[in-house]
Structure formats: structure tokens, C-alpha cells
């Protein structure tokens, strides 16, 4: 993992590292154990089949973790102490989905003498449907 990027290495329009993940039911079950979120909509296939969703879905925060991993790969420790995320959950993610997370640097500005890198990001499923969209800001200290 990179320590902290140099501002000179970051430019408006730069693409962030693209990440592809497969949130299988096994991963979803493991996430439930790790997070303590045992909502049956995520882990009980019989329960979920009877809901309007028709089947289990991944935790939204599990999918959001993919966006955070992208930001970690791009900005290293600067993401952990100076990162901000603002997103909307747009569509549910099913266990059989493949999720591609991508983003780009929209602008670089300075606030109180500290460079801020403004990024947009999204997660899409294999059909191209957006499941998460929003932005992230990284403070480069």
C-alpha cells in the first residue's frame, strides 16, 4: 500500500484504479459475521425469496467497501486520515453479480493551504446498471 501520493503525480481527469469484485453468497455471509449485520435479507435465502426482492442482496456497506479499496489503492494512507465519501445506493446487488468500481479525479483545489482531490466514483453491475454513485474527497497532508 502506498504511503501518501505526491500532489505532482495527480492530475485532473486521471482515472482511479478499476476494481472488479464478485460478492458471492459466501462473501455476503462472511461479511454478516464480520460486521454483525445479520439482516435476513442478506443471508437467509428462503426468507429473501418471499420478499419483493426475490432473493438475497449484498450489504450496501459491503459494496461501498469496494469503493474504499479503490481510493486506498489510489491514495494510500491519505485516504484513511482525510478521506470523505458521499454516495447514493442506487440498486441492490445480487450474489451472482460482478461489480466494477471505477472513478476519476474531477478537480484539485486548495483549502486552508491543504490540497484537496475531488473524485467521482461509481459501482456498476455486469449489466452496466449503476448500483452506487457519488464522490470522494481526499485531503493530501
Amino acid at each position, binding site marked *: *500500500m502506498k504511503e501518501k501520493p505526491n500532489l505532482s503525480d495527480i492530475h485532473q481527469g486521471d482515472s482511479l484504479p478499476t*476494481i472488479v*469484485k*464478485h460478492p458471492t453468497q459466501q*462473501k*455476503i455471509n*462472511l*461479511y454478516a*459475521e*464480520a*460486521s*454483525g*449485520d445479520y*439482516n435476513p435479507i442478506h443471508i437467509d435465502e428462503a426468507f429473501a425469496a418471499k*420478499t*419483493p426482492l426475490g432473493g438475497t442482496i449484498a*450489504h*450496501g*456497506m*459491503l459494496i*461501498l*467497501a*469496494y469503493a*474504499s*479499496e479503490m481510493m*486506498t*489503492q489510489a491514495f494510500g*494512507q491519505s*485516504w*484513511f*486520515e*482525510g*478521506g*470523505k*465519501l*458521499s*454516495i*447514493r*445506493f442506487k440498486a441492490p446487488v445480487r450474489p451472482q453479480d460482478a461489480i466494477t468500481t471505477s472513478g476519476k479525479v474531477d478537480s484539485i483545489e486548495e483549502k486552508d493551504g491543504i490540497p484537496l482531490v475531488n473524485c467521482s466514483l461509481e459501482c456498476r453491475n455486469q449489466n452496466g446498471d449503476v448500483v452506487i454513485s*457519488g464522490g470522494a474527497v481526499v485531503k493530501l497532508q
Partner: protein
Amino acid sequence: MKEKEQSSPLSFKQLAVGFEFPPTSYELTDPVIAKYLEAVGEETDLLTSGIVPPLAIAACAMTALSQSFTVPPGSIHASQELEFLKIVPIGTNVSCGGKIAQKLERGSLNLVILEINVTNQAGEKVLTGKATIAAPN
């Protein structure tokens, strides 16, 4: 992992602006974080760096708050804001809390905005955020 005396959860309608959730403590140990990293398929070298992924902390906070109330069928986690303030080393005890910041009606939906905050064992804020839950009328 979790230390909390659980009282009966409130219904969505009972949630009042200003209601403060009782704080919940989590010990972010190696095995817990390893399980989290396996679940999210994290491919950065976080575990060897000894740092807790910020979304792992956020997940604990959201779970802690969501266990204090029930939501009607069809409710969704509509949006999320997070700010990461300090690096959290693996092994840290964090305390997750929050409050109801706002309640709104938008068309056929009732929206509740939760403010979340997480502190380390020194009482320093490590994460803050807002989550919007949308429930059908």
C-alpha cells in the same frame, strides 16, 4: 466482539429527532479484521500494515445503530456520507454512537437521517458520517 446491553429496539415511527443511540464498543482484533478483509476481497496489504480499513469501522457503526431500531419492510439504506479522521490500528477498541439528526417526508417515503460517530479508546473521533434510511409510508 461487541459489548452492549440491548434494550428493545424502537420502531421507525418512534425515532425522534435528537434521540441518541447508546454507544456500542467493538474490539477490532486481527481475526475480526481478517474476516472482514476476506469478506470484501480486499487486495491491499492492510492486514500486514496493521491498519483497520475505514469501511470496517463504518460497518460496525452502522450495525450498532441499526440494532437500536426496526424498519418497515421495503426500507432501504438510501445514501451514506463518511469522513475518516484518524488511522485506526488493529487492536483498537472503538465506541460507535450516533443520533437521529432529521426526519423528513418525501412523497411516499419517510426519511430518517442518522449521524454516526466513532471514537477510539482515547476518546478521539476517528470517523463521522450520516446515513439516510428511506422507509415506505
